[in-house]
């Protein structure tokens, strides 16, 4: 693979050494379990999609004997579809992917027993929640707004499943802190930086749904308390419910930023910009949830308006991503002789599914993002709120951009792409053909390695020697929950020049 020269005045990084092949293999095994579980959930969830689409087309298949035996109603199917695709598939995939990436990138060891325990707990939560879903006792759609009530098992299972993702957060953040301690004054490698920032964002984001389920819905469904406030529950749901979309797309952004340019033979346009993007998501993902409640009564308009403005603000890091990733691809294509206004696109490695799937996903995300700007506007919202526009919006964002990127990524991490091929093919026949026609790959990473940060990152090793933005974004990570970097050692994370963001 040719990589165009990276003009960096800084010292090159050293590749972290995980010479212990057995450890790396065991790390990858846990990741594969997560990913295969994720795709199994997606497989079931997605099979229901076409039934719904037919229903929209005026063809009712829910009364046919086979389907009647499995699904009591359209809504039971829809609840399974939403929960399995949007909550289970995404969370399992991300838990595996963003455990593997930072551990590999930092060259750190993690406690494998704990990692397996987390996987087992998450799966147990899933299975518990699956029982009432399958018996039609939790036909609540994936928003499960009270006072519509489901079986307590559904809430308990969901709480355990989502709660276990916080154990992954703990393991990754702990790993990063240990790395910071061992490497004072060093820049966190880019891939690890992005992964850690995503997990930190999710830790803040998940608090809403965890609070709603643990303190309101579980006691109520068990009959311990008489009622539950529907409005406050909905607000807590959307505390998480909007930020969760960044939990879905940031892992895709990681692949777009870090791996795509590299596979196209180019480089990241601006690394500090990437770091800034992730810090913006870390800080701004959560306080936007009220944009899901424009239509709800008795919520202050000042707060609704503030959340609207913050929603437009959070569009900025996504725009930065769109333009800078596209620029890096163009840069790579031109470096390989691409010409013309659009002709350069033919110089990109479309034949590689690890490349073409995420790029097609990005194209879908352009439309998704544009639609999102419409949704965010309180003036447009009443025209589209809860109309078919909304499923349209999230099927081209999470349903395509995230899902298709994750499918592409799976080629690195899973030995048997043929299985995924079938699943992917149901939805995306371009990828279907690419996948079907490509040769069996036993270990994707052997043929097309996932790049390490040192390959793609011009930031250099030392915080002191890196650019201002790199120095500035690093302590922002540490700021999060760590009591101003106390745990990581404030000296490590304080910018050596520039504003004293963190003082002990």
């Amino acid at each position: 693979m040719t990589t165009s020269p990276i003009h960096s005045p800084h010292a090159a990084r050293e590749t972290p050494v995980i010479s212990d092949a057995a450890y790396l293999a065991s790390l990858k095994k846990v990741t594969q379990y997560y990913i295969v579980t994720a795709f199994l959930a997606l497989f079931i969830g997605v099979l229901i999609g076409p039934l719904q689409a037919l229903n929209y087309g005026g063809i009712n298949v829910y009364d046919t004997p086979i389907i009647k035996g499995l699904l009591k109603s359209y809504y039971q199917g829809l609840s399974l579809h939403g929960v399995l695709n949007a909550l289970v598939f995404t969370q399992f995939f991300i838990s595996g992917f963003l455990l593997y990436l930072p551990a590999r990138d930092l060259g750190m060891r993690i406690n494998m027993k704990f990692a397996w325990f987390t996987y087992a707990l998450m799966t147990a939560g899933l299975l518990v929640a699956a029982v009432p879903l399958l018996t039609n006792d939790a036909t609540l759609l994936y928003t499960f707004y009270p006072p519509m009530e489901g079986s307590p098992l559904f809430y308990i299972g969901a709480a355990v499943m989502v709660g276990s993702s916080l154990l992954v957060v703990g393991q990754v953040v702990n790993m990063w802190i240990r790395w910071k301690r061992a490497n004072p004054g060093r820049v966190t490698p880019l891939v690890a930086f992005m992964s850690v920032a995503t997990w930190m964002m999710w830790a803040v984001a998940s608090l809403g749904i965890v609070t709603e389920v643990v303190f309101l819905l579980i006691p109520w469904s068990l009959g311990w308390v008489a009622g539950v406030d529907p409005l406050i529950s909905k607000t807590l749901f959307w505390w998480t419910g909007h930020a969760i979309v960044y939990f879905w797309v940031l892992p895709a952004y990681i692949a777009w930023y870090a791996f795509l340019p590299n596979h196209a033979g180019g480089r990241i346009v601006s690394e500090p910009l990437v770091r800034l993007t992730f810090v913006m998501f870390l800080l701004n993902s959560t306080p936007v949830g009220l944009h899901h409640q424009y239509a709800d009564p008795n919520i202050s308009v000042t707060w609704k308006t503030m959340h609207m403005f913050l929603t437009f603000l959070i569009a900025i890091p996504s725009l930065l991503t769109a333009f800078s990733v596209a620029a890096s691809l163009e840069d790579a294509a031109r470096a390989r002789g691409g010409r013309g206004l659009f002709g350069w696109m033919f110089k990109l490695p479309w034949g590689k599914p690890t490349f073409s799937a995420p790029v097609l996903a990005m194209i879908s995300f352009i439309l998704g993002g544009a639609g999102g700007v419409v949704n965010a506007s309180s003036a447009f919202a009443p025209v589209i709120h809860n109309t078919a526009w909304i499923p349209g919006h999230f099927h081209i964002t999470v349903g395509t951009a995230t899902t298709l990127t994750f499918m592409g990524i799976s080629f690195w991490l899973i030995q048997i792409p043929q299985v995924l091929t079938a699943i992917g093919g149901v939805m995306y026949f371009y990828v279907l053909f690419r996948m079907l026609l490509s040769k069996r790959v036993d270990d994707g990473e052997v043929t097309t390695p996932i790049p390490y940060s040192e390959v793609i990152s011009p930031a250099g090793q030392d915080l002191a020697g890196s650019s201002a933005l790199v120095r500035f974004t690093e302590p922002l990570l540490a700021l999060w929950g760590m009591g101003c970097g106390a745990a990581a050692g404030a000296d490590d994370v304080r910018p050596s020049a520039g504003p004293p963001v963190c003082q002990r």
Partner: protein
Amino acid sequence: MALFLFVTVLASFSSGTYPSLTGEGGHHITGVKNGRLNPKNFAATPFATPGLRQNADGTYEAFVVAKAFQFEPAVLKVPVGQPITIHVTSADVLHGYFIEGTNINTTAIPGQVSSFTTTFRRPGTLNVVCNEYCGTGHHNMLGGVKVEVQEP
């Protein structure tokens, strides 16, 4: 710039260009305080007898109750060209109140009243749909608004 936009957006909310959905829409409703009521005791409120009423000062108010799986009244009759404040609430779970072809689209929540003022300018019938999932009969939860020319 952002501040300017922020102020203008807030102004459009408070001037009613976009309904703020807070409080009782400038009216006083017995049994409703700050847009909230006891969902188990409609008897103490005008929601006990849903429909249109004309107040002593000539203003119109309409009370709509959403419950699985119908609206009360099923068809709301309103006079054309008159500002009407519509109050919507729910008797059980969350419902939606969407008047097709308009930007009237609000959530009916038990314990909360959604109040907004609007003027129907053309006579005719508009469809109302519940657009928040509320149970097995959700897709049959339809209603209407009949905009009538008043007898002189």
